[in-house]
């Protein structure tokens, strides 16, 4: 029962990473070293260590409440790092504009009167500084980001009128427009239809090819296999970290999902070669 999932024949697809490929020697974009995070001094995630290098994608996997969003917010500095360290590009305080963040869908006011183009432009604000208004370069960057996610034709639409999947891609465009070295995606595939999932996967692959490091939280093992090089399994702490073929074992998955066995079965079903288990 505790077989290694990686021993199953992977479902090779165009663009799927070679999971046996060695990690690059480039300096890490993000280094998390024995870090623990807390909300109002209440521990939320403990003793996490990993790093991510340019062009890599890491899947954060764990049940609800396992600390995936906590880790992303800890990296962003939105919650306290109470032990260990988090360094982005070697700095404890991330350089302005170095991190792009795509929050979970459904957290935003659908009635907010902003167009998709205006939302994506928000990604440029930090680089502009307080007093400058967006110029031609910024408009071009916004157009390029919308092209990258395939939504240039919806630029003038009100953000709240877009479908959930399009909104998610729009927020990804906002993150891309800021020109990040590290991209944090919080459950970006939740509730997406096949068309939007494919579009999002395509965009992530292009960003990786451009050298952007990507950390993506997901429940979906199939998607992790499709776009990620490494996996970080969490359940209040770090269960395992490493390349997919060594870290994504059934033992580790069961350990991460030990309190929600049903969910684990659900996830096992989407792993190639395990349908019906």
């Amino acid at each position, binding site marked *: 029962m505790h077989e290694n999932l990686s021993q199953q024949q992977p479902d090779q697809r165009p663009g799927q990473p070679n999971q046996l490929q060695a990690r690059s020697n480039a300096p890490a974009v993000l280094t998390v070293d024995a870090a623990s995070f807390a909300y109002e001094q209440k521990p939320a995630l403990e003793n996490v260590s990993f790093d991510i290098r340019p062009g890599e994608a890491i899947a954060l996997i764990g049940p609800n409440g396992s600390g995936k969003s906590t880790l992303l917010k800890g990296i962003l500095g939105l919650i306290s790092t109470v032990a260990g360290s988090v360094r982005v590009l070697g700095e404890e305080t991330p350089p*302005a*504009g170095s991190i792009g963040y795509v*929050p979970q869908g459904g957290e*935003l006011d659908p*009635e907010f*009167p*902003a167009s998709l183009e205006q939302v994506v432009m928000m990604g440029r*604000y*930090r680089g502009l500084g307080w007093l400058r208004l967006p110029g031609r370069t910024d408009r071009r960057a916004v157009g390029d980001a919308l092209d990258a996610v395939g939504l240039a034709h919806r630029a003038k639409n009100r953000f709240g009128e877009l479908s959930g999947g399009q909104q998610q891609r729009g927020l990804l465009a906002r993150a891309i427009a*800021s020109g990040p070295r590290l991209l944090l995606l919080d459950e970006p595939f939740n509730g997406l239809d096949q068309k939007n999932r494919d579009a999002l996967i395509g965009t992530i692959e292009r960003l990786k090819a451009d050298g952007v490091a990507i950390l993506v939280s997901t429940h979906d093992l199939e998607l992790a296999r499709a776009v990620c090089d490494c996996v970080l399994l969490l359940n209040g702490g770090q269960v395992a970290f490493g390349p997919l073929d060594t870290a994504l074992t059934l033992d580790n998955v069961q350990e991460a999902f030990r309190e929600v066995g049903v969910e684990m079965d659900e996830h096992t079903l989407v792993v190639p070669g395990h349908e019906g288990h």
Partner: protein
Amino acid sequence: MDLLGPLFEAFSLPFMARALAVLVVLSLVAGVVGVLVNLRGLEFISDGLTHAVFPGIAIGFVWGGRDGLFAGAMIAAVLSAVVLTLLVRRAVTSDAAIAIVLTAMFSIGIIVVSRDSDYAGQLEQLLFGRLLTVTGAEVVKTIVICVIALLLVVLTLKEQLFRAFDRTGSAAAGYRPLLLDLVLNVAIALVVVAASSAVGNLLVLAVLIVPGAVARLVTVRLWVLFPVAAAFAALAAWVGLAIGFEASVGGGVDLPSGATVVLVLVAGYAVALLARLTIDRVRRGGSLGRGAPVTRERATRAWSMSAQVAHETDAAGKDAAGDGHADHGHADHGAGR
């Protein structure tokens, strides 16, 4: 009969011109700040700030008379904005706790005013304004305070909009939420100060809330919200002043000017809401699906604020018509004649 005449003739009188100048400047700034209040859903905090600033207005007034009012109010405004911002940010308290603190502040203000021999008259002026007795020096002070509030908002406008749309995304981009909240709350408090001498502490809320709510009903274009809110507020101020003057002079009905302006604002909101609902219904019938339909929550929130304002306006009218306050109502419109 010249129907448009009353809209212009009244303002040839110096006291009416001063009142219009104060209200137009106030409207332009309150319109811009009010849009952010609406987008951030800060109506409750704004209401709280109007109460929290009141002790400062009262202390300044009692100690320094009308000249001291602005200084006391400014100090109280900045302090209140900082305390409220920290209170809300700490999230250690509920809305009820904030309301308790603010009503306590309001009570302190009333106690301070009650030390004055002309307690009832002074209290009425502070609560409901004395628009038509505004002096030239007060016009200048109002303009200066409004310009400071406007600068605070305009210089951080794109960052404020980012935070209004996506709090987490804004913080993740590196913006400090506390700083942005402080700037906006201080701007709101300054508008409260600027408006207090004109429309009074209780009716300030209408000037802050209604124009932004109207703009949300009129347009779904982000940058259009600001001119729409400012223009609507200025128009309502002009029409309200003219109606108050005409009713008082021509019709013999003594209407408090500040309360009349507020009622015109609320009436404008009601018209905009009805128009929006009608357009939404027609569009749904035609399946056009454009614009931002008025949701029950949005309409209820804005309408409840308008109802509160209308209730306070009604109280202002009753006070002005009551035995103890009728003279002040007359004094308001009678000044400068």
